[in-house]
């Protein structure tokens, strides 16, 4: 059986044109998906049943026993951390926020270690963004800054930019200019009309120089800024000002380097300056497929996008204090529930050292690096493969993901719902 128009559950592009071939209860082939999407659809090695660590051994347990352990762990904790959420659907994220509030715990999602700084900048100066469809149909200049879509969002160029013909761009490859700014060459820089290689840590200075040129103050600039020749900076500004519609996409090359959210703020302000001459937009290349949804759900429910601390009985948000890396590195939380992410593979060492010292439950379909630190792991269906739900694309468009496979695994929402109901019995009798 071939299921058309399936939504890919890997990255923030949420490509919705995937054809999945299912035979004998297994996905055997995909069409249109990139390497990343294909590997996710075809993935195997799922964990078969919940497991519990007993001394130096792993023991299989029932779902009821796993839920019992999770409920007891969360009710016993003074400062539980509920982390992850980006690989699951909005419905499960809602349950997570309710649970964090009732437990007076902290809920954080993976955006605190990807585009959290971008959100901080947006809170300061706003977000002149647009949907991917607008870019595909209108943008005659694209700037990729600090990102490598060929590796991280492989179909972004073919669906929306370099190779995508649009309503106002009959021959995209000829009519659309692509500028790539990065500290290193990559497969993406090879496809650029103009590659700007800057010195590591100099994004802020280069953005400021571009703003100065747009404002007509370029004569004051030195011969090079952040390793970039002045002439090249002038050329880029000239291209941008002549464009009918420009779109900047930025990645973790801006959020993870020195300056962090200030880099993004400067990039947004550059776009602001360019809008005095032409139409320009800027958006983040969101990585985890529903990380944007996690920010949305948290914001509707609490007013804040990530790093929300309920210990005061109200929602409190202070990135750097209430974010997962900080709470773990300070050895502050005394229990951790991890949903749809793998902090042991993606967090700095001091955080993982603390995970080893506290009770941890993970809800995830696969054994991963975090499994080694779990007291209990509960395998679930994969949202977008054997569980349906709502996910947000990188441009903020909500898309309903499909269930293409029938398995016996419960969904994240079902497991979290059971845990939440039991917590309610105790905390809200």
């Amino acid at each position, binding site marked *: 059986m071939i299921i058309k128009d399936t939504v890919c559950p890997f990255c923030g592009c949420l490509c919705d044109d995937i054809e999945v071939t299912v035979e004998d209860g297994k996905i055997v082939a995909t069409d249109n998906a990139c390497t990343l999407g294909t590997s996710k659809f075809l993935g195997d090695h799922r964990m078969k049943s919940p497991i519990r660590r007993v001394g*130096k051994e792993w023991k299989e347990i029932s779902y009821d026993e796993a839920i019992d352990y999770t409920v007891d762990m969360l009710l016993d904790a003074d400062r539980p951390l509920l982390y992850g959420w980006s690989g699951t659907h909005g419905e499960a994220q809602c349950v997570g926020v309710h649970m964090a509030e009732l437990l007076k715990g902290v809920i954080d999602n993976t955006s605190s270690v990807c585009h959290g700084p971008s959100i901080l900048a947006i809170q300061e100066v706003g977000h002149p963004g647009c949907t991917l469809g607008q870019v595909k149909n209108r943008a005659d200049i694209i700037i990729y800054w600090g990102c490598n879509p060929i590796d991280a969002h492989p179909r972004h160029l073919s669906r929306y930019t370099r190779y995508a013909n649009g309503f106002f761009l009959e021959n995209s490859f000829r009519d659309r200019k692509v500028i790539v700014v990065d500290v290193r060459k990559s497969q993406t820089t090879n496809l650029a009309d103009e590659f700007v290689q800057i010195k590591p840590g100099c994004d802020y200075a280069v953005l400021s120089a571009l703003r100065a040129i747009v404002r007509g103050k370029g004569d004051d600039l030195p011969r090079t800024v952040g390793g970039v020749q002045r002439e090249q900076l002038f050329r880029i500004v000239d291209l941008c000002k002549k464009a009918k519609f420009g779109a900047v996409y930025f990645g973790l090359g801006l959020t993870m380097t020195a300056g962090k959210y200030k880099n993004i703020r400067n990039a947004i302000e550059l776009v602001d300056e360019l809008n005095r001459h032409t139409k320009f937009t800027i958006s983040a290349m969101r990585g985890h497929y529903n990380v944007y949804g996690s920010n949305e759900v948290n914001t509707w429910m609490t007013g804040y996008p990530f790093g929300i601390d309920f210990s005061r009985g109200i929602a409190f948000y202070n990135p750097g204090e209430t974010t997962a890396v900080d709470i773990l590195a300070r050895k502050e939380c005394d229990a951790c529930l991890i949903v749809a992410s793998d902090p042991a593979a993606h967090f700095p060492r001091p955080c993982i050292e603390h995970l080893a010292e506290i009770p941890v439950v993970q809800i995830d379909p696969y054994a991963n690096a975090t499994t080694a630190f779990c007291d209990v792991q509960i395998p679930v269906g994969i949202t977008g493969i054997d569980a349906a739900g709502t996910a947000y694309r990188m441009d903020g468009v909500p898309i309903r993901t499909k269930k293409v496979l029938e398995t016996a695994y419960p969904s994240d929402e079902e497991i979290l719902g059971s845990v939440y109901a039991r917590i309610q019995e105790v905390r809200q009798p």
Partner: protein
Amino acid sequence: MKVMMNTGRTVDQGANVENKRSVAYRDETSTCFMHFFDMMELGIDEGENVLVASPYGRVVLTAAADDLIKPGTIFVPYGPYANHIIGGETHSTGMPDFKSTEVTVDATDEPRRTIYELMEELGGLPYDH
């Protein structure tokens, strides 16, 4: 040799990210991409191991020549090997220095460890079923 460590997504890292016990994931995330000139200075060939150290820890990676990498910098795909030597300071933003950690790189005869060996060092228990 002192260098700046950058980390990031690669296709091979992303394609195997849901199968972290695979050899492909281990091989990709434990690769230290560096410029050939820097490898010459260290006296190492492609495929030989390097010891990468920071104030937060040390880890053995396998060197791979890549002329896309600037001399004086290394690139390690996202994953447990790079994070083994990254600190928890976030400068009040929630975001660690994933792309700007200063490290030293030296030739070594030490073997590269598995992901679960790294996790064991930090207090974890491997799950190999």
